[in-house]
């Protein structure tokens, strides 16, 4: 390969549940080292897209590539480069933080010694080094989220996808999580796809893909999208992009 492929490439993806079309010909890319926000209301199709990226559902139409590795043709290689934080909690509450990490490491073929080293590093990076031996159940919501992000990085993925990671967190914890993810992009060069319905999580320089009713309404740098719509802020721009009357009930 002569040039770096996009961290995530979504091309012509459609998905339906029975007769209902949940995704309609969605295409966009996440550039290497980019912080890309997938913006959409609840039910816009964000979770469906995540289920396709994480292979819970089969891709019926279109292509998804992680670092140029086709998810349908070479799923193992694609998944090895992908880190995921799901919307619902996926930690084993009865096990300790470290035990959760060792299990995840084993699922990626990483031995215990190396797993222990990485666990120490990652927990230190999210300021939870002293909680390694605690049961997950004893952590707060914000701490669990930080643990989940650290765990998603155990196998050193180059792309991290997060599905509404700040849902249910207080303002302080939300800011922490967002800072953590942005730090990964700035310092580690990890690419991030951040799904949310909250426009205040967007920075002017972020890449934004607006999803509405299964269709990609807009894709571009946040500041440019705002300018194009002539809106005063990102929230107004979002409403303009998806149509004011449709956004009305949701705000």
């Amino acid at each position, binding site marked *: 390969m002569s040039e770096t492929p996009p961290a995530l490439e979504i091309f012509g993806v459609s998905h339906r*549940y029975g007769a209902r079309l*949940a995704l309609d010909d969605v295409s966009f890319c996440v550039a290497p080292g980019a912080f890309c926000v997938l913006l959409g209301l*609840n*039910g816009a199709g964000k*979770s*469906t897209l*995540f*289920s396709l990226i*994480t*292979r*819970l*559902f*089969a891709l*019926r139409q279109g292509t998804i590539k992680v*670092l140029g*590795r086709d998810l*349908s043709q*070479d*799923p*193992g*290689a694609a*998944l*090895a*480069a*992908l880190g*995921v934080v*799901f*919307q*619902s*909690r*996926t930690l*084993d509450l*009865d*096990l300790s933080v470290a*035990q959760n990490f*060792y*299990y*995840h*490491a*084993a*699922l*990626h*073929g*990483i*031995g215990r010694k190396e797993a222990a080293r*990485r666990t120490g*590093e*990652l927990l230190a*990076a999210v300021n939870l080094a002293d909680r390694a031996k605690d049961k997950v159940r004893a952590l707060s919501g914000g701490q669990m989220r930080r643990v989940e992000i650290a765990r998603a*990085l155990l*196998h*050193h*993925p*180059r792309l991290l996808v997060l599905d509404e990671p700040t849902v249910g967190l207080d303002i302080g914890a939300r800011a922490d999580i967002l800072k953590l993810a942005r730090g*990964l992009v700035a*310092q*580690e*060069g*990890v690419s991030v796809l951040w799904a949310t319905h909250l426009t205040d999580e967007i920075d002017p320089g972020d890449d934004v893909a607006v999803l509405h009713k299964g269709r990609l309404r807009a894709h571009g740098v946040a500041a440019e999208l705002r300018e194009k719509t002539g809106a005063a802020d990102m929230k107004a721009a979002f409403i303009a992009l998806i149509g004011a009357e449709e956004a009305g009930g949701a705000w």
Partner: protein
Amino acid sequence: MVTTGEPAPRHLTFGAYLICLQGVIWREGLRFLHQRERFVSALVRPLVWLFIFAAGFRQTLGFSIIPPYDTYILYEVYITPGLMAMIQLFNGMQSSLSMVYDREMGNMRVLLLSPFPRAFLLFGKLIAGTLVSVLQVYAYLVVAWFWDIQPPPFGLLTVLPALLLVGLMLGALGMLLSSLVKQLENFSGIMNFVIFPMFFASSALYPLWRVQEGSPALYYVCQANPFTHAVELIRFALYGQINWIALTVTGACAFVFMAGAILAYDPSRGLMALRGAPGAGN
């Protein structure tokens, strides 16, 4: 730097497969240790049958000498293989119950995110569940030993491969069912429609020739029930013998159930994709 700049490697080594398998088994073991009630109830259930049901029935049922036994036996001795299989039946269904729970809670999603082939991951999960069930069976045999149920010592060894195969078959059946069940509540229904009919319409509690005397139709149902063959496989193995028909049927069923479960969890062909939206239908 907490992550490397290099993309993850494309291919997994044999050693990596072993690490993964070990990890899946280790987690199952940890979960089992943490759920002490599960272990206690797995042990108490067959003991209730042994101490109460078998004692009460002892005088009611008379037995002729049937293989693999070479002498008249007590009813307690007769139902022991059936109770061993029952432990594994419950365990198989219970670990699949935990898969439904896992899927709802998201742990299953973590498992399926692993870059290893899905068939391998599910097989690893089956092995882990089977090992737990074998531990439970031996714990039961220790207690039963003091209740004067003493199979030949070498039988305790020869029964091990039979227990592994039966564990795999019942675990795979549970896994197949778990893929068909969308939510936890639906599962208790399947337990009633699977566990009880399988257990009662088998040779676990009564020899099939006695069933035939009572109801020829039920006899054929029992013959067609894979659980009957699982019980007979264990019964013969416990006395150092091989029941070839039971072995063939159990092996074939294990294979079919496993293939079905792997297909069902395959995203491109499976049943998961045909169902509603993610996050349990929101």
